[in-house]
């Protein structure tokens, strides 16, 4: 496991150092805060999909779930004037239900994860547009909105989800705290509880796991529920971070970022492999690349290309490191 993280960690440090050398402003506190904030937002999503990838599945619907949850949350808060914490509750329950639906379709109706979540990608996006008549919407109510009476509470929520906490002269963005809590929970879940073990086992050999008396269907459903839940959390964080949700666009393509981060962070799409720390670092690498491109002043046309190349080289490099380590072990044993 540790070899996996080494490669991606080196990558992180390398890009960091190079950018800092080219443009020292990169290192100032404000930029670091932003980098931490965006990394956290994307890492939350990526962690979610890691659960699914560990079981050997895939979730293409994440981006649409982020969008739909952000839309529904905004409607509840702004237009419906709902009690703010209930609105958060509804948004999260929605995401749990989506995960449940995926899980059930995959395990009971036996539709392949790729297909289920591809359809999800289309359907949730459509729902978001339909609910809002495709109007931009945000969680913060204005005077004429039903939610205006809860303004204070909603501003409180806004601080919780997208505020900054001063630690000395450094303002730590709250999403980082969410990430910290969620990633520690995820790591403990995966490494210290039986369910985590079952997810890895299931991803490596589903039949074998079932023959050992584990309800693999239930575990798979759990993975999809967790994935959607994390996407839902990300949806809430994005809604408050952006204060504005475009039903047709918010979250578009995020599934690809999340999957890319999970893969770059050492999850194997064949299942059975993955680590929380790796995924978090990989998500940070992706955000770092974007930030560096702006800091160094490279044309935005090239962003995608650079990102693609880094992911590809990162994965190939990782493979090479693993091979070398294995070979060394072999030599030592014999």
């Amino acid at each position, binding site marked *: 496991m540790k070899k996996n993280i080494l490669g991606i960690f080196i990558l992180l440090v390398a890009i960091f150092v190079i950018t800092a050398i080219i*443009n020292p*402003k*990169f290192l*100032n506190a*404000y*930029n670091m805060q*932003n980098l931490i904030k*965006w990394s956290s*937002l994307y890492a939350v999503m990526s962690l979610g999909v890691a659960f699914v990838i560990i079981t050997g599945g895939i979730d293409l619907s994440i981006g649409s779930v982020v969008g739909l949850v952000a839309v529904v949350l905004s409607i509840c808060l702004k237009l419906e004037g709902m009690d703010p914490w209930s609105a958060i509750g509804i948004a999260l329950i929605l995401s749990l239900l989506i995960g449940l639906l995926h899980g059930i379709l995959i395990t009971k109706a036996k539709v392949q994860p790729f297909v289920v979540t591809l359809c999800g990608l289309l359907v949730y996006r459509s729902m978001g*547009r339909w609910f809002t*008549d*495709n*109007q*931009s919407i*945000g969680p913060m109510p*204005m005077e*004429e909105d039903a939610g205006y009476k809860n303004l204070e509470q909603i501003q409180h929520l806004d601080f919780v989800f997208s505020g*900054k906490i001063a630690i000395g002269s450094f303002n730590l963005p709250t999403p980082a705290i969410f990430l910290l809590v969620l990633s520690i929970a995820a790591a403990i879940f995966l490494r210290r509880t039986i369910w985590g073990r079952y997810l890895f086992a299931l991803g490596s050999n589903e039949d074998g796991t079932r023959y050992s008396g584990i309800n693999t269907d239930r575990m798979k459903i759990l993975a999809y529920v967790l994935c959607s839940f994390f996407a839902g959390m990300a949806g809430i964080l*994005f809604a408050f*971070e*952006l*204060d*504005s*949700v*475009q039903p*047709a*666009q*918010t979250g*578009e*393509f995020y599934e690809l970022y999340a999957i890319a981060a999970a893969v770059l962070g050492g999850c194997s799409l064949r299942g059975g492999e993955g680590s929380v720390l790796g995924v978090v670092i990989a998500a940070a690498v992706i955000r770092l690349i*974007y*930030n560096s491109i*702006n*800091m160094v*002043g490279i*044309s*935005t046309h090239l962003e995608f290309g650079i990102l693609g190349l880094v992911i590809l080289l990162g994965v190939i490099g990782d493979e090479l490191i693993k091979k070398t380590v294995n070979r060394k072990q072999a030599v030592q044993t014999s």
Partner: protein
Amino acid sequence: EGGGSSSKSDAPTFAYVTNGIDPFWDLCAAGVRIAEKEFGVNCEVLMPPKGVVDQKRMMEAMIAKGIDGVAVSPIDADNQTPFLNEVGRNTILITQDADAPKSDRLVYIGTNNYKAGRALGKLVKSAIPEGGEVMIFVGRLEQLNARQRRQGVIDELLGRSMQDLDKVKFDSVDSVNLTSEGSKYVIVDTRTDNFDKAKAKSNAEDSMTKYKNLKCMVGLFAYNPPACIDAIKEANKLGAIKVCGFDEQDALLQAIVEGHAHGTISQQPWEYGYESIKMLKSIYEGKQPENKYFELPFLVVDQSNVESFWAKKKEMAELGKQD
């Protein structure tokens, strides 16, 4: 029978085709609905989700349905000309929002985006009369209107002379630190975000890291100014960095009310919808348009008129909802 929801079966049916999915277009749809009622016609609003392909197949379907007129915002006017002509052969064709000057469209209804850009430049000037660094944010620069707006802003700030709309010369997309002798303004960079709002915000944040003396952010697409305001607010630089924008997202209007943004240029989207349908109806009834270009006025919104403008917008947004 085919056609709109309201079933005036002998009334003509018109299609209003946008260039994508955007709240802007739903405001336009409000104008369409007003005109629909006022002129007793049926209308369909079509929003192609993914570019030229969807625009083409939607218009084809409309022709197949025997539509009586189409008002379209072409995505790539020059290259779409042959197809637009095909549409023109089958039904009444007018363009709105973006023109296809080489096509057989009967008339173009639209804002002069270059002029609007210059007006935006004027807003910037009044926001930071002492001059300074200006940065432009936009979704994509491949769209002609985006380029025209940007060029308008640049030309105005650098004190260049007025250009003709159909012969605008563009500065390179990648050009940085544009300035001119005698101008107090430097356009330090233009950043695109591909319609990703999160990207738009992080672009704004990164610009504050990179350019310490940034004085004004200019957002050319509807979601850009709110993203800029958000980023500025979080960096505690409200007031220190001005925002001027385009279009009329609530967050921007709110900021204008609060004085956190300087002003915006509104194209009054509902006018697009209303005038398009009005024009189609009059052509349908045999009246040829007098001119090939029907210029819609844009509106400069600042603290002085924001309240009344916002009220109007809300009314329109309500009307534009699809059922």
